[in-house]
């Protein structure tokens, strides 16, 4: 028998247990799945505020005189357009064949310093890849940090109630901007839910107190299960499920992040992207009857077959929704069918997202 791998604990592990979380293994970590009802947690984020432990994600500082040039080669989006310190962008990192190795957020900290946030499951592979392909830059993972995602229409006010001293520095932050506070805390106005809010990286020892103070300020603790339904409604892909090394950004709904403006920028995967056919695309599906679409379920369209990459029952819309990889000729508005347990159920092909800022997107 293979021994069970030992799952890592985040600095908030005891806090989750104290709140009665159901824990689950995710990318090598013990993470909270929910604290009783994932649907109530979902609604809390859409209507008020919720907080997620995302300490499993990997923050990496990129340091050294060659940082900018290294990231311009490693990433399909162009960090050169980060004109103000603190500005962030979302990017794919590609293989030589143009397949997605990961998706990440990169922030320019000023000078030759950048900060990346990588997916937990791919972090080790990413680091090895970046160090191998850009040995002139230094990549330093910040394993000393915890990360919280505070999300929802009331998220910002909740942070200022819990940490009044942080208000001055964070109130002026625009979307996709970040700032460093004293004491090694890093606050960015980003998220993975389709709602406003902050992501906060802070020293591990300070995380439980912030968590408790946010809950005392009325924020709902939320687990990975709600995080998944929220990001799906927001049309945000999950690496490993909606995208992997076999697909290009154009086939995963994130072609808009591939920056071809500077024709002299030879980023990894660029040449392959130019010659690979774009046979597929990622679109949304809304099923007409109650069911739960799940990954790998088959989809039939007038232009050929496709596949569900992620599916769920949308708590906000009250209908089944899915992300699906479909033939390139399919257009939003057309009908499709999804095979759910042997039955072909009708669906409408739609653009993404399904929900933004608490409201249905039509």
């Amino acid at each position, binding site marked *: 028998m293979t021994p069970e791998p030992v799952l890592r604990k985040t600095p908030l592990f005891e806090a989750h247990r104290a709140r009665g979380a159901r824990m689950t293994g995710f990318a090598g970590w013990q993470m909270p799945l929910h604290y009783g*009802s994932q649907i109530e947690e979902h609604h809390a984020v859409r209507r008020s505020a919720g907080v997620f432990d995302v300490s499993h994600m990997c923050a990496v500082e990129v340091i050294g005189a060659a940082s900018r040039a290294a990231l311009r080669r490693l990433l399909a989006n162009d960090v050169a357009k980060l004109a103000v310190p603190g500005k962030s962008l979302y990017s794919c990192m590609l293989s030589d064949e143009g397949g997605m190795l990961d998706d990440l957020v990169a922030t320019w900290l000023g000078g030759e310093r950048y900060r990346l946030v990588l997916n937990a499951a791919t972090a080790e592979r990413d680091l090895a890849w970046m160090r191998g392909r850009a040995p002139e830059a230094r990549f330093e993972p910040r394993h000393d940090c915890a990360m919280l995602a505070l999300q929802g229409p009331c998220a910002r006010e909740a942070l200022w109630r819990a940490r009044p001293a942080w208000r001055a520095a964070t109130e002026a932050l625009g979307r996709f901007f970040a700032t460093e506070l004293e004491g090694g805390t890093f606050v960015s106005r980003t998220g993975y839910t389709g709602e406003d809010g902050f992501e906060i990286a802070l020293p591990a020892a300070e995380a439980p107190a912030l968590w408790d103070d946010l809950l005392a300020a009325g924020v709902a603790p939320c687990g990975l299960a709600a995080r998944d339904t929220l990001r799906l409604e927001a049309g945000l892909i999950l690496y490993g499920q909606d995208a992997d090394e076999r697909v290009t950004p154009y086939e995963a709904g994130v072609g808009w992040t591939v920056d071809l403006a500077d024709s002299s920028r030879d980023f990894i995967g660029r040449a392959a992207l130019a010659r690979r056919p774009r046979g597929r695309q990622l679109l949304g599906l809304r099923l007409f009857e109650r069911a739960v679409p*799940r990954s790998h379920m088959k989809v039939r369209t007038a232009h050929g077959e496709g596949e569900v990459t992620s599916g769920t029952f949308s708590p906000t819309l009250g209908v089944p929704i899915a992300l699906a990889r479909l033939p390139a000729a399919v257009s939003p508005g057309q009908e499709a069918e999804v095979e759910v347990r042997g039955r072909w159920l009708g669906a409408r092909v739609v653009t993404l997202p399904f929900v933004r800022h608490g409201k249905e997107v039509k």
Partner: protein
Amino acid sequence: MNVPEDLRYTATHEWVREEGDLLLVGITDPAQEMLGDLVFVGDVQVGRRIGAGEVAAVVESVKAAADVYAPAAGEIVAFNEELGSRPELVNRSPYEAWIFKLKPAQPPQGLLDAAAYRATVDAKKEAL
């Protein structure tokens, strides 16, 4: 763990209540807790003749789907239509929210009492 004394159970987490010559069948409190918030209850074919242990219904939470088995051979005579649009009732009150009614061909065999069902749940928890 909420496991009422007046019901009978299967090792596959169904509860069974006798009502006249019919059996009302639902899923237990430990089962709904394991599954989490339900978003689908269905795939019940009223009028179907079914064998003991065959799949009579499907319940799905956001994360997982689970089959609900017939606790005895017989005919499915009713589906609780309210659960079709309000599956969350199974989470809220699992022992009120019957899923289907079965007219058994013979009295059901081998069902567990509350103590025996609790013991099987505890044994599974220890194995996890």
